[in-house]
C-alpha cells in the first residue's frame, strides 16, 4: 500500500475521525466534555491493556539480546533528542532557556496514545511487531526529563535546587501512568497467554472502541488548548511542533537500522521517538521547572504535534521504517 493510500485510509479511520470530532467541537465552543474522572480512567485502561499485552508477548517469546539493544537505543534517544530540540529552539525561537528546556523534554519522552494509535495502524496492515516495544516505551518516558533539567540549569546556575533531585526522581518514576504501564507489563509477563485469555474480553475486544472515546476526549482538550494557548505560540515554535517529530523520526530510523526489528516494530519505535509526551512530562515540568509556561508546552505537544502524528505522522513513520526494517 502506498504512503498516500495509507495516509488516506488512516484519516478515515474511526480513531482519527473521533479525534477530529472532539477538536471541531472544542473549536466551535460546544459544551461537549468527557468528565475528568472518566478521562483519567480511560487513560489507565489503555495503559493497563497495552502494558499487559506487551508483557504477554514477552512471556511467549522470552528476553532477547535484541530487546536489550532496542531498549538501550531508546534510552539514549530519550536523553539525546531533548538536546537537539533545545538547540533548535534556542536558535530559531525566542523562548527562554527554561521554556526551551521544558518543551524539549516533551519531545524526548513519548506519548503512549500516539504509540497505541500506531499499533492499531500497524495491526490494520497485518504487520506483527515485537511485544517488548511497550517496555521500550516505558523506559523512554523519563530520561528526557533529566536531560531537560540539565539543559535548564545550563542557563540559570542552581535556581531549581531547593527541592532536591531525589524527591523529583521519586515523583517522576512513580508517576501513576508509569506505574500502571510497567506494572501491567510485568503482570502480563507473569501470567502469560493464560492470563490474557482470562481478561481479553475486557482489555482486548473493546480496546479500539475505548480508544475512540479517549481520542474524542483528547480532541476536546487539544481544541480547548489551541483556543486558549495559540496566542502563546510564535510561528517558529509552531513549526518546531511539526519539524521536531520528523527530526526525531529520522534519528530513530538510523539508530535502529542495525538492530533488525520487524517492520511493525520499527514503525512503532520510530513513532515513539517522534511522539511528544502530554501526561507524564507536563506533570514533571510543573514540579521541576515551574517557571516554564505550561501554555507553551502543553499546547504544542497536544495541540500541534499529537494531531500531526495521529493523522500524517504515523503513516510516514511506517514508510520510514520500511527503509530499515527486516
Amino acid at each position, binding site marked *: 500500500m502506498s504512503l498516500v493510500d495509507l495516509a488516506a485510509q488512516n484519516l478515515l479511520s474511526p480513531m482519527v475521525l473521533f479525534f477530529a470530532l472532539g477538536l471541531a467541537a472544542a473549536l466551535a465552543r460546544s459544551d461537549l*466534555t468527557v468528565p*475528568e474522572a472518566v478521562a483519567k480512567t480511560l487513560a489507565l485502561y489503555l495503559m493497563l491493556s497495552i502494558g499487559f499485552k506487551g508483557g504477554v508477548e514477552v512471556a511467549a517469546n522470552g528476553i532477547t539480546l535484541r530487546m536489550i539493544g532496542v531498549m538501550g537505543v531508546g534510552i539514549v534517544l530519550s536523553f539525546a533528542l531533548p538536546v537537539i530540540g533545545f538547540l533548535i529552539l534556542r536558535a530559531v525561537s525566542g523562548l527562554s532557556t527554561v521554556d526551551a528546556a521544558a518543551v524539549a523534554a516533551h519531545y524526548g519522552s513519548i506519548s503512549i496514545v500516539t504509540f497505541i494509535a500506531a499499533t492499531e495502524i500497524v495491526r490494520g496492515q497485518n504487520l506483527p511487531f515485537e511485544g517488548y516495544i511497550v517496555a521500550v516505551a516505558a523506559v523512554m518516558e523519563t530520561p528526557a526529563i533529566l536531560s531537560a533539567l540539565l539543559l535548564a540549569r545550563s542557563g540559570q546556575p542552581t535556581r531549581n535546587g531547593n*527541592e532536591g533531585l531525589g524527591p523529583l526522581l521519586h515523583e517522576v518514576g512513580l508517576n501513576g501512568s508509569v506505574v500502571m504501564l510497567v506494572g501491567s507489563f510485568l503482570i502480563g509477563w507473569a501470567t502469560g497467554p493464560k492470563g490474557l485469555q482470562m481478561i481479553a474480553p475486557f482489555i482486548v475486544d473493546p480496546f479500539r472502541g475505548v480508544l475512540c472515546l*479517549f481520542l474524542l476526549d483528547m480532541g476536546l482538550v487539544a481544541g*480547548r488548548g489551541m483556543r*486558549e*494557548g495559540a496566542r502563546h505560540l510564535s510561528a517558529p515554535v509552531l513549526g518546531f511542533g511539526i519539524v521536531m517529530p520528523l527530526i526525531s523520526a529520522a534519528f530513530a530510523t538510523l539508530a535502529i537500522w542495525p538492530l533488525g526489528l520487524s517492520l511493525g516494530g520499527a514503525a512503532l519505535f520510530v513513532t515513539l521517538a517522534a511522539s511528544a509526551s502530554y501526561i*507524564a512530562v507536563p506533570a514533571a*515540568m510543573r*514540579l521541576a521547572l515551574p517557571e516554564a509556561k505550561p501554555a507553551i508546552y502543553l499546547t504544542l505537544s497536544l495541540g500541534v504535534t499529537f494531531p500531526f502524528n495521529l493523522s500524517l505522522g504515523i503513516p510516514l513513520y511506517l514508510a520510514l521504517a520500511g527503509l530499515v526494517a527486516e
Partner: protein
Amino acid sequence: MQTHPKKRIEIVVEYPALRRLLDRLDRAQVTGYTVVPALAGRGHDGLWSSEGLAGDAGRMMMVICITDPARLDPVLEEVYAVVARHIGIVTISDVQVIRSDHF
C-alpha cells in the same frame, strides 16, 4: 454559643504542587486542612479547566486551613514558599470556631 477567633487560609494551587504544599503545612504544624477540587478558573496564567484531563498538570485544587492567629505568620511563610513558585493564590480571612482546642 461561645466562639473563638481563628484565621482561615484559602489556597488555590496547581495539583502537581499539592503534595509539597501539604508537606509544608505539616511542617508548620497546622492542626488540619481540607482539600476541595476546583473545576475551572482564570488568573494571570490564563483560563484552565480540568474537564477531560487525563493528566494532572493543569488541574487546580483549593486547600482550606483553619489556624490560630498567633500561628498565622509561620504558616503563611511555608505556604508562600510553595505558591510563589507555582500557579496559585492565597487569601486569609477571619472566622470563629466553637471548640478552640480543636485548632
